[in-house]
């Protein structure tokens, strides 16, 4: 089963709403290496039971669409296992880095491009290494394509266009670096995602040359038709309200509301702490030299004073490290999760829309069984996805917390050690 452990659970992008372009390409691109996966997909479409572990659990969740409760451990735990498989570096087959920002100046505008390097052992990629340059707009394009294709999956957040609050200049080094890191994370999260990683647009994004990408962008389903559908969906859900919303999703909604509130607060708190620490650091910078100045007037006490001065300097440096730790690890992650919470709210809404559509269709066309199944399928997939995302989030969170604490701890230990040295004088 190990080999098949690589097989992702919800097998293929739900081509439910669209013309199924993605579905096709994805199915075709999988080729021989994914034989069992294809079989699994077919099996799913037929709503059949199979020996395959993943499908089995998948099926279980399908059957319990309406009474699924998040506390039931069976499916989620297996999902966790799946996620963990992908997370392990030994089993990853797609490595992406984003680096080397460069600015380009044209007559019309100035913009930054980033180098995206991909290394892969996957069969469907023609070569094992790719290097392309992309700009922020390209990333936006990719994200919107993924959202179209998988409206109920959780697409990772992109860094924002501007950061008004921090008054960071668009081309300041700090801003570019923060953005680069976020973009790197964005692509890697997609790569880690069992479904999204096989998205065709994603592949094109990673591999196509500039002109290829532009021409590909121009193809593809019109955004307008999509928007039209969305508008209708919103209208219908607003009109009818969402009946038959499984309790699980109501719970999720409530959870997300509170979570979003809390994470926003945490983000604010963390920023505030950063600011206070910076102010503290600035005052400390002045504190040390005074002792040195004093030591110049003294004889006996001079050494002790100089000792204190140097310790204060150590403290300053330690504080700097602490601040750096905050801004490199804690702040970006909190920010990411703030964005995530927005995304998740969006996803839940979309799910509601789908449900709304389903309900209205059910009302209108009570006997078209196939369509109903299609929607149920989607809903089922969404459930899984959300559950997985939840667990992924938690796993991530734990990891992050450990990191942060380790940083804080090392800072304090540093400060303490220095004071200890002084005391011995």
């Amino acid at each position: 089963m190990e080999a098949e452990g690589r097989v992702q659970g919800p097998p293929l992008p739900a081509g439910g709403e669209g013309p199924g372009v993605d579905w096709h390409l994805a199915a075709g691109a999988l080729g021989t290496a994914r034989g069992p996966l294809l079989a699994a997909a077919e099996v799913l479409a037929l709503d059949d039971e199979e020996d395959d572990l993943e499908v089995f659990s998948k099926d279980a969740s399908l059957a319990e669409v309406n009474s699924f409760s998040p506390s039931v451990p069976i499916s989620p735990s297996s999902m966790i296992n799946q996620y963990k498989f992908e997370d392990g570096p030994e089993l990853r087959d797609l490595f992406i880095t984003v680096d080397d920002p460069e600015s380009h100046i044209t007559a019309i505008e100035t913009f930054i491009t980033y180098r995206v390097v991909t290394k892969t052992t996957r069969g469907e990629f023609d070569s094992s290494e790719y290097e392309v340059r992309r700009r922020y707009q390209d990333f936006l394009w990719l994200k919107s394509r993924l959202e179209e294709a998988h409206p109920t999956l959780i697409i990772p957040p992109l860094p924002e266009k501007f950061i008004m609050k921090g008054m960071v200049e668009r081309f300041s080094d700090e801003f570019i670096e923060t953005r680069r890191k976020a973009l790197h994370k964005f692509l890697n999260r997609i790569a880690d995602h069992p479904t999204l990683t096989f998205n065709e647009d994603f592949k094109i994004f990673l591999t196509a040359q500039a002109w290829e990408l532009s021409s590909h962008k121009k193809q593809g389903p019109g955004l307008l038709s999509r928007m039209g559908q969305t508008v209708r969906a919103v209208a219908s859900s607003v009109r009818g309200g969402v009946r038959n919303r499984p309790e699980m999703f109501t719970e999720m909604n409530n959870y997300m509301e509170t979570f979003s509130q809390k994470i926003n607060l945490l983000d604010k708190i963390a920023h505030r702490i950063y600011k206070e620490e910076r102010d503290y650091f600035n005052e400390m910078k002045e504190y040390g030299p005074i002792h040195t100045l004093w030591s110049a007037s003294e004889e006996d006490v001079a050494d002790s004073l100089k000792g204190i001065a140097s310790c204060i300097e150590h403290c300053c440096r330690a504080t700097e490290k602490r601040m750096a730790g905050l801004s490199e690890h804690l702040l970006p992650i909190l920010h990411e999760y703030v964005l995530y919470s927005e995304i998740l709210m969006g996803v839940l809404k979309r799910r509601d829309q789908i449900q709304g559509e389903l309900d209205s269709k059910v009302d209108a066309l009570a006997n078209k069984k196939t369509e109903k199944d299609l929607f149920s399928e989607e809903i089922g997939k969404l459930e899984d996805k959300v559950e997985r995302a939840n667990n992924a989030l938690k796993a991530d969170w734990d990891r992050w917390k450990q990191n942060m604490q380790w940083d804080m701890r090392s800072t304090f230990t540093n400060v303490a050690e220095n004071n200890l040295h002084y005391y011995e004088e």
Partner: protein
Amino acid sequence: MEDCLAKKMEITVSEAEKRTGRNAMNIQETYTAYLIETRAVESQTEGQCAPVESLWRRYSEFELLRNYLSVTYPHIVVPPLPEKRADFVWHKLSADNMDPDFVERRRIGLENFLLRVASHPVLCQDKIFYAFLMQEGGWKEMVNETGFQLKADSRLKALNATFRVKNPDKRFTELKHYSDELQSVISHLLRVRARVADRLYGVYKVHGNYGRVFSEWSAIEKEMGDGLQSAGHHMDVYAASIDDILEEEEHYADQLKEYLFYAEALRAVCRKHELMQYDLEMAAQDLTSKKQQCEELATGTVRTFSLKGMTSKLFGQETPEQREAKIKVLEEQIREGEEQLKSKNLEGRDFVKSAWADIERFKEQKNHDLKEALISYAVMQISMCKKGIQVWTNAKECFSKM
């Protein structure tokens, strides 16, 4: 130090009380009175303690005592009183004189003052000081009767006036510079320390918000809930710990403040020397010019341009009798002047000797005290860090269990 009062007697300022009364202008006012308790140390036989004597004094009486001491012993570096008003406060401390924390710190400062005076080899023997400790009624009158205010050189108060002194003792000049530097550096340090304390307070307290949000968040989490809740608790502990830490630091600040004020006392001694030297030089100058006058009159030559010379040229010479009379007067004055100069010189030398002895004593005391204060500050910082480590280690554990 063998005969110090401090060795013979326990002195404490044990309490502070708010009182209202009528002041000199018959206006109602509120002030704080401090209880001074003394008890003889020597006679403690078989567990029988000597009786405790006590009386109440207010801050203005302490001031009067100190003024008396500084005037009466100008060559001594007189210990300073704790500050009249709260300076160098960071935002959480109140600058109110009636604030209980301020009163408490002042109480400790006053006790410290009394102990310092009592352990000074010269000052502890002063009768007025003794009376301050033992005699409640009539003390003020006693002090005023000494007439010390008359002795006070008002020039000492004029801090900024400069006197051109030609030959000051170099040591005193250096010492004056030192005291200026000490004053400026300590006050700078205290200012910055107050700001640093403010900021540190901010950092700790904001972490308290974590506690609240974590606990609210834990309500909606299942697996993470417990970890979050207990981590939040540790954040609260962390935020609360800063209060004690900063309170301890205030004591350190008070120790530094004492030496800030000591610097002023030091400077006063230097000033006194300056003035004495100035008076000396003026007297010497006066003597020289008188001698010169005498000589001129006697020999009839006008060495320097003088009004006398001019008028005598214009209006004619004086009679020999007049000249004789003048010479006699001058000679008398010269004799007096020489006497005065001698005594002034002696005075000056004595002053320098005794002042310098006390200054050496003060230097030793200062070095010792400052070292101790700095070490205790370092210890405080270490303990603060240890607490920090503990809190964050606990928090880390909670987080890793999420």
